[in-house]
């Protein structure tokens, strides 16, 4: 098995509060890994550390065997490690197609490419991916006028457009109408299988994550609590206790 992301003994605290303490985990290439834990357990902090949003206090983070904990967000993104945001961030003043086009991987362009226009190939790719997430009919609308769920799909499509090797998704089903969650799970799985993108997902919805992930990590109070397959985790007493609040 092939490790694409390796987190070793990572700690991060803000002021006096320890958000992550000696967290270690590995994400296997081509698989879907889940990260769960009760509110405040440090999941988003860990994500932010991995994508370079803030420096870590100690430990190491390696992506494709390269140390990334000292790199800024853009450099990590250009290595092929992307993230989506919990509050869903898209470019609201542009339409969907433009949002897609701006998401073309810049690591694959040199400076002169920046001064050309996008050609048919790129437009077709944008259309295909918008179709993939079901936004093709809305592709000429301003992204800011889409509903929250539609924006989430757009953000996902933009991430795919960027051809990442690995994608970190922060609560992808949060705020989505329950009847549409199946559609989202389906697309995530297809992206993983068809495009070969490794997924690392923070999720609160147990049904979703147990359905999708090969491996699940559980955080509690800033520390790693358990690791295992969905079955292992569901039957793990420590995990159950953490969620129900009994210490």
């Amino acid at each position, binding site marked *: 098995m092939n490790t694409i992301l390796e987190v070793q003994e990572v700690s991060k605290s803000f002021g006096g509060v320890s958000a992550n303490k000696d967290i270690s985990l590995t994400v296997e290439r081509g698989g879907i890994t889940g990260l769960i834990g009760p509110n405040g357990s440090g999941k988003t902090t860990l994500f932010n550390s991995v994508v*370079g*949003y*803030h*420096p870590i206090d100690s430990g190491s983070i390696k992506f494709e065997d390269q140390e990334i904990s000292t790199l*800024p*967000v853009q450099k990590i993104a250009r290595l092929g490690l992307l993230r989506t945001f919990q509050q869903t961030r898209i470019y609201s003043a542009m339409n969907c197609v433009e949002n897609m086009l701006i998401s073309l991987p810049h690591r694959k362009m040199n400076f002169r490419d920046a001064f050309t226009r996008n050609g048919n190939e790129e437009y077709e790719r944008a259309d295909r991916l918008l179709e993939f997430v079901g936004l093709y009919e809305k592709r000429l609308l301003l992204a800011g006028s889409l509903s929250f769920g539609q924006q989430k799909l757009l953000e996902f499509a933009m991430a795919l457009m960027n051809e990442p090797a690995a994608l970190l998704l922060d609560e992808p089903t949060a705020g989505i109408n329950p009847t549409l969650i199946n559609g989202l799970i389906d697309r995530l799985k297809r992206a993983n299988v068809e495009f070969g993108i490794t997924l690392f997902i923070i999720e609160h919805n147990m049904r979703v994550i147990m359905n999708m992930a090969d491996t699940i990590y559980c955080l509690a109070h800033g520390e790693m609590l358990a690791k295992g397959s969905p079955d292992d985790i569901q039957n793990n007493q420590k995990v159950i206790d953490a969620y129900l609040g009994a210490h």
Partner: protein
Amino acid sequence: MDQIIGNISLLFEFPVVNLKIVLDGIMIGALFALAAYGLALVWGVMNVKNLAQGDFVISGGYVAWWLDQNGFPALLGVPVAFLILWCIGWVIYKLVISRVIERDLFTSLLATFGLAIIMAQILNLMFGSDTQSVDLGYETIYFFDGFIDVPIAKLIGVLMAAALAAGVIIFMKSSRMGQAIRATAQDARAARVLGIDTEKVYAFTFSLNAAICGAAGAIIVMVWVIQPFYGITHSIRAFVIVTAAGLGNLPGVIAAGLGIGALEQYGAHIFGIGYQQAIAVLLLLIVLIIRLIQQRRKRQSLQ
């Protein structure tokens, strides 16, 4: 260059000159701190960065100057400026500020910049572009064989500034409006939910700020000079102080105000009086750059 080196060596030859420079700086810096406090107040409560701050100060100065020109005791200028600027601040709030509070920050910045221009030009039309000052005619105390002169007027100025500051702080701590202001500063929505009329709070805060600046200006005209176009530099000074000290940090604001006063005096001594405006602005850039470096360590940007 030789001149500069000569000025610096003077500081080492006669250490007492340092004391003079620091004292001069502190006395004027106290007034900068006042204006900065007002800026921080408006900034914290309404998230409006008021570039017209300095023009409120200069306006207050002209109130006192006009009183003096017309035979009234100049010291009366301080409370009169306080009141007049309070009213002006209230009007400006209702006409302009209230409409830019909810918008993005550049809008409020540009609107207050426009106000600054209007005020500076009106003052120029009304009073001309010469620098003005009011001589209270009080004596000067001399120390250290005449090296250090402390005009009693300046001393009175500092005392008035301190009294005003103390008054405002006590008001903020113990009055209901003061509490309402602090609550709104922390979380406007929550304040509204709890029944505080945030519109009234905003109007009050902005007027209070204008009044504080007016009083500070009335004091400044007695210990320094005013001129219609000095406003923007005062605004920048206030901005530097608040940026250096941080928003909720009152002792920091005082320290930074005194510090800027002293630094400007040092700069004026070493490089020459013509550089004083330049130094105030350069301090701004230095503070911003220091903040930038601090933020970069945390990989954040300065918003």
